[in-house]
Protein backbone atom coordinates (compact mmCIF):
# COMPACT_ATOMS: atom_id res chain seq x y z
CA UNK A 1 0.00 0.00 0.00
CA UNK A 2 1.38 3.40 -1.01
CA UNK A 3 1.77 6.10 1.57
CA UNK A 4 -0.84 8.71 0.75
CA UNK A 5 0.23 11.16 3.42
CA UNK A 6 1.84 14.44 2.42
CA UNK A 7 5.42 15.26 3.32
CA UNK A 8 5.97 17.27 6.51
CA UNK A 9 7.11 20.24 4.41
CA UNK A 10 3.91 20.26 2.39
CA UNK A 11 1.76 19.86 5.51
CA UNK A 12 3.55 22.73 7.18
CA UNK A 13 3.23 24.95 4.12
CA UNK A 14 -0.46 24.04 3.80
CA UNK A 15 -1.33 25.01 7.39
CA UNK A 16 0.83 28.14 7.32
CA UNK A 17 -0.97 29.17 4.13
CA UNK A 18 -4.35 28.53 5.77
CA UNK A 19 -3.28 30.70 8.70
CA UNK A 20 -2.01 33.41 6.35
CA UNK A 21 -5.23 33.43 4.29
CA UNK A 22 -7.33 33.85 7.44
CA UNK A 23 -5.01 36.49 8.91
CA UNK A 24 -4.91 38.42 5.63
CA UNK A 25 -8.69 38.33 5.29
CA UNK A 26 -9.28 39.45 8.88
CA UNK A 27 -6.59 42.13 8.77
CA UNK A 28 -7.94 43.38 5.45
CA UNK A 29 -11.45 43.77 6.85
CA UNK A 30 -10.10 45.46 9.96
CA UNK A 31 -7.48 47.79 8.55
CA UNK A 32 -9.68 49.51 5.95
CA UNK A 33 -11.83 50.75 8.84
CA UNK A 34 -8.90 52.24 10.79
CA UNK A 35 -8.97 55.97 11.40
CA UNK A 36 -6.20 58.14 10.04
CA UNK A 37 -4.81 58.82 13.52
CA UNK A 38 -4.77 55.16 14.54
CA UNK A 39 -1.30 53.83 15.41
CA UNK A 40 -1.94 50.87 13.07
CA UNK A 41 -2.98 53.00 10.11
CA UNK A 42 0.46 52.70 8.47
CA UNK A 43 1.68 49.50 10.12
CA UNK A 44 -1.26 47.20 9.38
CA UNK A 45 -1.15 47.61 5.56
CA UNK A 46 2.66 47.21 5.63
CA UNK A 47 2.30 43.85 7.42
CA UNK A 48 -0.62 42.84 5.21
CA UNK A 49 1.71 43.35 2.22
CA UNK A 50 4.63 41.47 3.87
CA UNK A 51 2.45 38.46 4.68
CA UNK A 52 0.66 38.64 1.32
CA UNK A 53 3.91 38.47 -0.65
CA UNK A 54 5.11 35.60 1.56
CA UNK A 55 1.85 33.74 0.88
CA UNK A 56 2.37 34.23 -2.85
CA UNK A 57 5.93 32.84 -2.64
CA UNK A 58 4.79 29.86 -0.55
CA UNK A 59 1.85 29.21 -2.90
CA UNK A 60 4.16 29.22 -5.91
CA UNK A 61 6.46 26.75 -4.11
CA UNK A 62 3.51 24.51 -3.23
CA UNK A 63 2.32 24.53 -6.83
CA UNK A 64 5.80 23.37 -7.92
CA UNK A 65 5.85 20.67 -5.23
CA UNK A 66 2.46 19.16 -6.07
CA UNK A 67 3.51 17.41 -9.30
CA UNK A 68 3.75 13.94 -7.77
CA UNK A 69 0.56 14.24 -5.83
CA UNK A 70 -0.31 11.02 -3.98
CA UNK A 71 -3.96 10.28 -4.68
CA UNK A 72 -6.73 8.74 -2.69
CA UNK A 73 -9.19 6.23 -4.04
CA UNK A 74 -11.96 8.51 -5.14
CA UNK A 75 -14.49 8.73 -7.94
CA UNK A 76 -13.51 10.61 -11.07
CA UNK A 77 -16.04 13.33 -10.36
CA UNK A 78 -14.68 13.83 -6.83
CA UNK A 79 -11.17 14.09 -8.17
CA UNK A 80 -12.19 16.65 -10.78
CA UNK A 81 -14.16 18.66 -8.21
CA UNK A 82 -11.22 18.68 -5.79
CA UNK A 83 -8.83 19.66 -8.56
CA UNK A 84 -11.07 22.52 -9.68
CA UNK A 85 -11.47 23.77 -6.09
CA UNK A 86 -7.72 23.62 -5.43
CA UNK A 87 -6.84 25.38 -8.69
CA UNK A 88 -9.49 28.03 -7.99
CA UNK A 89 -7.91 28.72 -4.61
CA UNK A 90 -4.52 28.95 -6.26
CA UNK A 91 -5.92 31.32 -8.90
CA UNK A 92 -7.52 33.44 -6.17
CA UNK A 93 -4.20 33.84 -4.37
CA UNK A 94 -2.45 34.79 -7.61
CA UNK A 95 -5.18 37.32 -8.46
CA UNK A 96 -5.10 38.74 -4.92
CA UNK A 97 -1.36 39.26 -5.28
CA UNK A 98 -1.70 40.88 -8.70
CA UNK A 99 -4.53 43.22 -7.68
CA UNK A 100 -2.94 44.04 -4.32
CA UNK A 101 0.32 44.89 -6.03
CA UNK A 102 -1.55 46.76 -8.77
CA UNK A 103 -3.61 49.04 -6.58
CA UNK A 104 -0.91 49.85 -4.06
CA UNK A 105 1.68 50.69 -6.73
CA UNK A 106 -0.66 52.45 -9.19
CA UNK A 107 1.21 55.75 -8.89
CA UNK A 108 4.62 54.27 -9.67
CA UNK A 109 5.91 54.01 -6.12
CA UNK A 110 7.50 50.64 -5.31
CA UNK A 111 5.94 47.97 -3.12
CA UNK A 112 7.83 47.52 0.15
CA UNK A 113 8.36 43.88 1.12
CA UNK A 114 10.12 43.93 4.51
CA UNK A 115 11.84 47.12 3.34
CA UNK A 116 12.85 45.62 0.01
CA UNK A 117 11.62 47.70 -2.91
CA UNK A 118 9.66 45.75 -5.48
CA UNK A 119 9.40 48.07 -8.51
CA UNK A 120 6.01 49.30 -9.64
CA UNK A 121 4.67 48.59 -13.11
CA UNK A 122 2.64 51.78 -12.91
CA UNK A 123 -0.98 51.94 -13.95
CA UNK A 124 -2.04 49.64 -16.78
CA UNK A 125 -5.74 50.46 -16.46
CA UNK A 126 -7.58 53.71 -15.68
CA UNK A 127 -8.20 54.44 -11.99
CA UNK A 128 -6.20 51.34 -11.15
CA UNK A 129 -6.02 52.10 -7.42
CA UNK A 130 -9.83 52.10 -7.21
CA UNK A 131 -10.69 49.36 -9.71
CA UNK A 132 -8.08 46.84 -8.54
CA UNK A 133 -8.91 47.72 -4.92
CA UNK A 134 -12.50 46.65 -5.55
CA UNK A 135 -11.39 43.45 -7.31
CA UNK A 136 -9.03 42.71 -4.42
CA UNK A 137 -11.96 42.87 -1.98
CA UNK A 138 -14.27 40.75 -4.16
CA UNK A 139 -11.61 38.09 -4.76
CA UNK A 140 -10.86 38.04 -1.02
CA UNK A 141 -14.49 37.12 -0.33
CA UNK A 142 -14.34 34.47 -3.06
CA UNK A 143 -11.17 33.06 -1.47
CA UNK A 144 -12.80 32.77 1.92
CA UNK A 145 -15.87 31.18 0.33
CA UNK A 146 -13.70 28.60 -1.45
CA UNK A 147 -11.69 28.00 1.73
CA UNK A 148 -14.86 27.27 3.66
CA UNK A 149 -15.98 24.88 0.90
CA UNK A 150 -12.54 23.25 0.99
CA UNK A 151 -12.70 22.85 4.80
CA UNK A 152 -16.30 21.57 4.66
CA UNK A 153 -15.29 18.95 2.08
CA UNK A 154 -12.37 17.79 4.25
CA UNK A 155 -14.65 17.50 7.29
CA UNK A 156 -17.26 15.65 5.21
CA UNK A 157 -14.61 13.12 4.13
CA UNK A 158 -13.52 12.66 7.73
CA UNK A 159 -16.92 12.49 9.44
CA UNK A 160 -19.27 11.07 6.81
CA UNK A 161 -17.06 9.06 4.45
CA UNK A 162 -14.66 8.18 7.29
CA UNK A 163 -11.68 8.17 4.92
CA UNK A 164 -8.14 9.53 5.28
CA UNK A 165 -8.53 12.73 3.22
CA UNK A 166 -8.20 15.04 6.24
CA UNK A 167 -5.90 12.75 8.23
CA UNK A 168 -3.23 12.70 5.54
CA UNK A 169 -2.85 16.46 5.87
CA UNK A 170 -2.73 16.50 9.68
CA UNK A 171 0.59 16.86 11.45
CA UNK A 172 0.90 13.97 13.89
Amino acid sequence: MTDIRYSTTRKLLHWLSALAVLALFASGLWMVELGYYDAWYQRAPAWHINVGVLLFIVTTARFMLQRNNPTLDASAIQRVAARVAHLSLLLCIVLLTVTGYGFSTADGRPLLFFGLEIPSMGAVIAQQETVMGEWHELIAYATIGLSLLHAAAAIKHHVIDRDDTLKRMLIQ
Partner: protein
Amino acid sequence: MKKLILATLLSAAVVSPVWAADYRIDDQGAHASINFKVKHLGYSWLTGRFNTFSGNFSYDPANVEASKIVVDIDTNSIDSNHAMRDKHLRNADFLEVDKYPDAKFVSTKVEVNGEDAMTVYGDFTLRGVTKNIAIDASKVGEGKDPWGGYRAGFEGVAEIDMADYGFATDFGTVMLELHVEGIRI
Protein backbone atom coordinates in the same frame (compact mmCIF):
# COMPACT_ATOMS: atom_id res chain seq x y z
CA MET B 1 -42.49 93.71 -33.83
CA LYS B 2 -39.31 94.36 -35.79
CA LYS B 3 -39.24 97.88 -34.39
CA LEU B 4 -39.57 96.57 -30.86
CA ILE B 5 -36.63 94.20 -31.33
CA LEU B 6 -34.59 96.98 -32.86
CA ALA B 7 -35.48 99.33 -30.01
CA THR B 8 -34.56 96.72 -27.45
CA LEU B 9 -31.22 96.06 -29.12
CA LEU B 10 -30.50 99.75 -29.36
CA SER B 11 -31.36 100.47 -25.75
CA ALA B 12 -29.25 97.52 -24.64
CA ALA B 13 -26.40 98.93 -26.68
CA VAL B 14 -26.83 102.32 -25.05
CA VAL B 15 -27.02 100.92 -21.51
CA SER B 16 -23.86 98.84 -21.92
CA PRO B 17 -21.70 100.55 -24.48
CA VAL B 18 -18.89 98.02 -24.07
CA TRP B 19 -20.06 94.45 -24.42
CA ALA B 20 -18.69 92.20 -21.72
CA ALA B 21 -16.54 89.57 -23.36
CA ASP B 22 -17.24 85.92 -22.73
CA TYR B 23 -14.37 83.58 -22.12
CA ARG B 24 -14.00 79.83 -21.99
CA ILE B 25 -11.56 78.60 -19.39
CA ASP B 26 -8.65 76.99 -21.24
CA ASP B 27 -8.81 73.55 -19.69
CA GLN B 28 -7.98 72.05 -23.09
CA GLY B 29 -4.54 73.64 -23.10
CA ALA B 30 -4.36 73.28 -19.31
CA HIS B 31 -3.75 76.96 -18.73
CA ALA B 32 -5.84 76.79 -15.62
CA SER B 33 -5.64 74.82 -12.41
CA ILE B 34 -7.69 74.24 -9.32
CA ASN B 35 -5.27 73.50 -6.52
CA PHE B 36 -5.88 72.90 -2.86
CA LYS B 37 -3.84 72.58 0.27
CA VAL B 38 -4.71 71.30 3.68
CA LYS B 39 -2.66 70.92 6.84
CA HIS B 40 -1.16 67.49 7.46
CA LEU B 41 -1.15 66.79 11.19
CA GLY B 42 -0.77 70.53 11.65
CA TYR B 43 2.90 70.19 10.67
CA SER B 44 2.92 70.89 6.95
CA TRP B 45 0.76 71.57 3.91
CA LEU B 46 -0.44 68.74 1.71
CA THR B 47 -1.17 69.98 -1.79
CA GLY B 48 -3.23 68.55 -4.60
CA ARG B 49 -5.47 69.55 -7.45
CA PHE B 50 -8.49 68.65 -9.55
CA ASN B 51 -7.36 67.69 -13.03
CA THR B 52 -10.73 67.82 -14.80
CA PHE B 53 -12.96 70.88 -14.81
CA SER B 54 -14.53 73.31 -17.24
CA GLY B 55 -16.03 76.74 -17.05
CA ASN B 56 -16.84 80.08 -18.57
CA PHE B 57 -16.60 83.64 -17.42
CA SER B 58 -17.50 87.07 -18.67
CA TYR B 59 -15.24 89.96 -17.97
CA ASP B 60 -15.33 93.59 -18.96
CA PRO B 61 -12.49 95.72 -17.64
CA ALA B 62 -14.77 98.79 -17.77
CA ASN B 63 -17.44 97.11 -15.66
CA VAL B 64 -15.74 94.52 -13.50
CA GLU B 65 -18.71 94.26 -11.10
CA ALA B 66 -20.74 92.73 -13.92
CA SER B 67 -18.27 89.85 -14.30
CA LYS B 68 -19.57 86.33 -13.92
CA ILE B 69 -17.94 82.95 -13.66
CA VAL B 70 -19.18 79.38 -13.58
CA VAL B 71 -16.87 76.40 -13.02
CA ASP B 72 -17.76 72.69 -12.96
CA ILE B 73 -15.30 70.33 -11.28
CA ASP B 74 -15.09 66.56 -11.70
CA THR B 75 -14.42 65.46 -8.10
CA ASN B 76 -13.19 62.08 -9.35
CA SER B 77 -10.20 63.85 -10.88
CA ILE B 78 -8.62 64.68 -7.53
CA ASP B 79 -4.86 64.19 -7.67
CA SER B 80 -2.56 64.50 -4.69
CA ASN B 81 0.30 62.62 -6.34
CA HIS B 82 -0.36 59.46 -4.29
CA ALA B 83 -2.72 56.82 -5.69
CA MET B 84 -3.75 55.31 -2.36
CA ARG B 85 -4.44 58.70 -0.84
CA ASP B 86 -6.45 59.74 -3.91
CA LYS B 87 -8.47 56.56 -3.59
CA HIS B 88 -9.14 57.45 0.04
CA LEU B 89 -10.04 61.03 -0.85
CA ARG B 90 -12.61 59.68 -3.34
CA ASN B 91 -14.36 57.42 -0.85
CA ALA B 92 -17.03 58.15 1.74
CA ASP B 93 -14.53 59.56 4.26
CA PHE B 94 -14.01 62.55 2.00
CA LEU B 95 -15.48 63.46 -1.41
CA GLU B 96 -17.76 60.43 -1.87
CA VAL B 97 -17.41 60.78 -5.64
CA ASP B 98 -19.89 57.98 -6.42
CA LYS B 99 -22.62 60.06 -4.85
CA TYR B 100 -21.24 63.52 -5.56
CA PRO B 101 -19.34 63.38 -8.87
CA ASP B 102 -19.47 67.16 -9.39
CA ALA B 103 -18.56 70.28 -7.55
CA LYS B 104 -19.61 73.65 -8.88
CA PHE B 105 -18.92 77.33 -8.38
CA VAL B 106 -21.39 79.95 -9.61
CA SER B 107 -20.53 83.56 -8.92
CA THR B 108 -23.21 85.80 -7.47
CA LYS B 109 -21.43 89.11 -6.97
CA VAL B 110 -18.10 90.73 -7.80
CA GLU B 111 -16.64 93.53 -5.69
CA VAL B 112 -13.80 95.69 -6.97
CA ASN B 113 -11.03 96.24 -4.44
CA GLY B 114 -8.59 98.26 -6.51
CA GLU B 115 -6.86 98.04 -9.83
CA ASP B 116 -7.19 94.44 -11.07
CA ALA B 117 -8.15 93.29 -7.57
CA MET B 118 -11.57 91.92 -6.75
CA THR B 119 -13.56 89.68 -4.47
CA VAL B 120 -15.70 87.13 -6.26
CA TYR B 121 -18.63 85.91 -4.16
CA GLY B 122 -20.51 82.85 -5.22
CA ASP B 123 -22.22 79.59 -4.42
CA PHE B 124 -19.84 76.69 -4.08
CA THR B 125 -21.40 73.24 -4.17
CA LEU B 126 -19.40 70.33 -2.80
CA ARG B 127 -20.74 66.98 -1.55
CA GLY B 128 -24.21 68.29 -2.43
CA VAL B 129 -23.88 71.18 0.02
CA THR B 130 -24.01 74.74 -1.32
CA LYS B 131 -22.35 77.55 0.63
CA ASN B 132 -21.49 81.09 -0.25
CA ILE B 133 -17.75 81.62 -0.44
CA ALA B 134 -15.50 84.55 -1.25
CA ILE B 135 -12.57 84.31 -3.65
CA ASP B 136 -9.90 86.92 -3.22
CA ALA B 137 -8.94 87.39 -6.86
CA SER B 138 -6.83 89.51 -9.11
CA LYS B 139 -6.29 89.84 -12.81
CA VAL B 140 -2.86 88.73 -13.93
CA GLY B 141 -3.12 90.05 -17.47
CA GLU B 142 -5.05 90.09 -20.73
CA GLY B 143 -4.37 90.60 -24.38
CA LYS B 144 -3.98 88.98 -27.77
CA ASP B 145 -2.31 85.60 -27.95
CA PRO B 146 0.10 84.73 -30.80
CA TRP B 147 -2.44 82.41 -32.44
CA GLY B 148 -5.19 84.87 -33.26
CA GLY B 149 -7.13 84.65 -30.01
CA TYR B 150 -7.62 86.89 -27.02
CA ARG B 151 -6.96 85.78 -23.47
CA ALA B 152 -7.46 87.02 -19.93
CA GLY B 153 -6.02 85.41 -16.83
CA PHE B 154 -6.79 85.58 -13.14
CA GLU B 155 -5.64 84.09 -9.88
CA GLY B 156 -7.49 83.72 -6.66
CA VAL B 157 -7.53 82.14 -3.23
CA ALA B 158 -10.45 80.98 -1.13
CA GLU B 159 -10.90 79.13 2.12
CA ILE B 160 -13.48 76.50 2.88
CA ASP B 161 -14.11 74.61 6.09
CA MET B 162 -14.51 70.88 5.64
CA ALA B 163 -17.10 70.85 8.43
CA ASP B 164 -19.40 73.09 6.35
CA TYR B 165 -19.62 70.50 3.58
CA GLY B 166 -20.33 67.46 5.71
CA PHE B 167 -17.01 65.66 5.27
CA ALA B 168 -16.87 62.52 7.42
CA THR B 169 -13.23 63.35 8.11
CA ASP B 170 -12.51 66.91 9.12
CA PHE B 171 -9.03 68.32 8.62
CA GLY B 172 -10.24 71.87 9.19
CA THR B 173 -9.72 74.57 6.63
CA VAL B 174 -8.89 73.80 3.02
CA MET B 175 -7.21 76.53 1.01
CA LEU B 176 -8.16 76.70 -2.65
CA GLU B 177 -5.65 78.22 -5.03
CA LEU B 178 -7.12 79.01 -8.40
CA HIS B 179 -5.51 79.91 -11.69
CA VAL B 180 -7.76 80.65 -14.60
CA GLU B 181 -6.91 81.62 -18.15
CA GLY B 182 -9.82 82.19 -20.48
CA ILE B 183 -9.96 82.35 -24.26
CA ARG B 184 -12.48 84.84 -25.61
CA ILE B 185 -15.35 83.19 -27.44
